[in-house]
């Protein structure tokens, strides 16, 4: 049954495409361990004996048996454990309301910051950016963010953002950027030093030495969304040569 | 402020005062507050009046337009009422907030004038079935401090008194139709008779007694009030109970009696005042809101 999925790796799938698995009529008694198992990632659903595609995109595979559809979605859906960039919209009671670009605002407790206690509240203003991780994210509950890890350390999370630029890209690009050894990031590194915060919700924050360079970085990233590696390299090279 | 919130202690104080015929501001139960009337305050209108009753301030403008008589009453003109509860009075009236109260007041005014004697509608007719005067009576509520009905009705009466309609000359046109000509001379005008225009008296039942010209505090203490439109002759052109309470028949009859008495007493001084002001003529220093 895996074979038919395997055949399609890298192909564009559309919602409603069905993978049917031909049942072997004869059950081999000797080969019990052959029962195939696959894991359906985002965009694939099991429907009875079939696997149905529910998002359009490219089918990806990860060894040994993980399959998912890589879609160019723009709207973010909170997932537990993901790190996102949020904007504080209101302070209410002992929680902040945070806009993460999802369907609902997430809540962030005052106490979910490193070193925060009842007495010692973090200095967070409305409109500030926070890099936070989802503690709770499911369809039935209000999503909740934290800015500490399980041991109470900030570990890179928390309020940030002075002097940089926030912009939005597609979720696909964000995932590409976060992939280990990503080419774009590498190319960018060569160009000049800059800071980059990547939120899984499609928000990027960049800061370089000057406003000018920050803008260049932002524009480069935005435009590398739809570029081939070749195009990107020439572009980056020209920037590096100072032709921009 | 269209309504106020009163604490129980305040209510008791007001109630006890009224029981002893001594109200919070020193009046007795059938006294009106200080009232100021000025006519001819808006020059764009054909008649206007401004009345303040305590803090209640009402401005009425009457505009006459030439219109077609209603098919059912071809030989009569008619009146159109509109009450604008402006946000000036209270922020609650902002936007459409004043509409509910405005409709209520407007409907009552239509009822008050729903008879032939209040205003001589036949005199508003120019040529039967074709042309008549249509009086737009626009009430502007500038400040609410209780007893809106009385203030409005007095202002309307004063404004009607002040209304001057240009004289109309009807001549036979060349093609058989009638031609209508308005007199250019501003002094050559027709006045309306306001002798039978009723004044509204609102009686508020507070505890066992009733008061006229209730302030907002007193209104907050009362469960029900009775609105009566009383003509100088003592007849009643409209009566209705407002508020969430009920009245027993005996006190109801008492109240109608009092209302009639107060209403009749109101007309004399009002008319005297209006003619007095009129007599001052053009020399009169117009005060408006500047005073």
């Amino acid at each position, binding site marked *: 049954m895996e074979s038919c999925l395997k055949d399609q790796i890298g192909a564009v799938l559309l919602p409603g495409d069905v993978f049917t698995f031909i049942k072997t009529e004869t059950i081999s008694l000797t080969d019990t361990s052959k029962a195939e198992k696959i894991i359906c990632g985002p965009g694939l659903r099991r429907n009875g004996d079939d696997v149905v595609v529910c998002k359009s995109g490219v089918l990806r595979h990860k060894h040994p048996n993980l399959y998912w559809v890589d879609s160019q979605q723009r709207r973010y859906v909170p997932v537990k454990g993901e790190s996102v960039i949020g904007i504080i919209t209101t302070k209410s009671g002992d929680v902040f309301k945070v806009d993460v670009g999802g369907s609902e605002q997430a809540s962030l407790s005052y106490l979910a910051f490193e070193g925060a206690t009842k007495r010692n509240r973090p200095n967070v203003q409305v409109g500030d950016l926070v890099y936070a991780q989802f503690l709770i994210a499911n369809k039935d509950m209000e999503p909740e963010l934290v800015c500490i890890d399980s041991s109470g350390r900030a570990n890179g999370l928390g309020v940030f953002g002075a002097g940089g630029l926030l912009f939005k890209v597609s979720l696909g690009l964000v995932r590409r950027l976060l992939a280990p050894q990503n080419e774009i990031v590498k190319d960018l590194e060569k160009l000049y030093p800059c800071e980059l915060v990547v939120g899984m919700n499609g928000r990027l924050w960049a800061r370089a030495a000057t406003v000018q360079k920050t803008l260049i970085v932002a524009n480069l990233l935005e435009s590398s969304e739809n570029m081939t590696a070749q195009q990107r390299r020439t572009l980056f090279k020209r920037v590096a040569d100072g032709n921009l | 402020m269209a309504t106020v919130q009163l604490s129980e202690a305040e209510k008791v104080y007001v109630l006890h005062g009224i029981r002893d015929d001594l109200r919070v501001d020193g009046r007795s139960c059938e006294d009106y507050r200080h009232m100021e009337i000025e006519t001819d305050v808006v020059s764009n209108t054909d008649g206007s009046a401004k009345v303040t009753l305590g803090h209640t301030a009402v401005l009425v403008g009457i505009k006459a337009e030439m219109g077609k008589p209603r098919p059912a009453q071809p030989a009569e003109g008619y009146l159109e009422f509109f009450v604008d509860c402006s946000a000036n009075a209270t922020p609650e009236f902002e936007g459409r907030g004043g509409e509910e109260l405005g409709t209520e007041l407007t409907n009552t005014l239509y009822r008050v004038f729903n008879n*032939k004697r209040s205003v001589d509608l036949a005199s508003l007719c120019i040529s039967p079935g074709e042309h008549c005067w249509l009086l737009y009576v626009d009430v502007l509520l500038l400040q609410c401090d209780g007893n809106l009905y009385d203030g409005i009705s007095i202002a309307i009466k004063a404004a009607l008194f002040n209304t001057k309609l240009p004289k109309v000359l009807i001549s036979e046109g060349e093609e058989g139709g009638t031609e209508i000509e308005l007199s250019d001379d501003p002094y050559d005008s027709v006045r309306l008779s306001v002798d039978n225009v009723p004044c509204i008296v609102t009686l508020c039942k507070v505890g066992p007694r009733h008061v006229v010209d209730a302030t907002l505090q007193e209104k907050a203490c009362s469960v029900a009030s009775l609105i009566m439109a009383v003509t100088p002759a003592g007849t009643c052109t409209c009566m209705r109970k407002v508020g969430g309470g009920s009245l027993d028949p005996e006190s109801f009859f008492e109240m109608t009696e009092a209302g009639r008495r107060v209403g009749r007493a109101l007309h004399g001084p009002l008319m005297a005042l209006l003619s007095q002001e009129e007599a001052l003529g053009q020399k009169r220093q117009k005060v408006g809101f500047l005073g």
Partner: protein
Amino acid sequence: MPTDTKRIRGPEVSQSLSRFICKPETTLPSDGTRADGRNRDQVDVRPVFVRCGLVSQAKGSAYIEAGNTKLICCVYGPKETERKDETDMKCGRLFADMRFAPFSCPERGSWIQGSQEKDLSLMVLESLQPAVCLHKYPRSQIDVNVMVLENNGSALAHAITCASLALADAGIEMYDLVLGCSIRQDGASYLIDPTFLEESGSYWASGENQGSLTVSFLPSLNQISGLQSDGEMGEGTLTAGVRTCIEGCYKLYPVIQQALVKAVRGAAPPPSES
């Protein structure tokens, strides 16, 4: 004026047919019996037909027929109040809405609520309010909807009666029933429970609105809960009119009570076999 955007209306210049029908002189004789055989100057209300619980979806409902005046009333609630910002949450709120069906009058009416209907709604509300134990329903609202199916006079009075019946049918706690009655003055005599023609007809015959009066009354408590009059009336006529109306209400009272008892019996579980 609100305008109806949902329907295509006839041209503005169009007029009702009735205006062009050459009517026979409708001047009612100012003495003798009335057109429908009732007597003047007597508390001679039209016989009424009352039935509760016709609308199954509503919490309570009532239908009333007096002569050709037919109306139906539904009560919904008590339910959670829609307006949360109201400061006074100790008491429940009563909402009343009275409408005329477009076909209810000789001339076609509009679908949207006119100012006259709003006025009548307010009257219904204020008449019912004293009778309902609103303090028993804090933070909630009760909706009363009255639809006039056919208007042959005294619609308001019957609407009040019908609404109080529907409230009782809905099991809303009340101090008393509310009954409505109206009269119309014609010269020296009065017509109780006037028909549509008498309401408007006598106006043109004598050329003057000699006064009409609607009273709503709580019969057990002997309280006037609502009153509305227009047309010029002297003191004597007014007081006499109110008394007559009260009398009229008392005449209606047993009929309404009976209907209610019948409704309650019908709704009660069958008595255990005995």
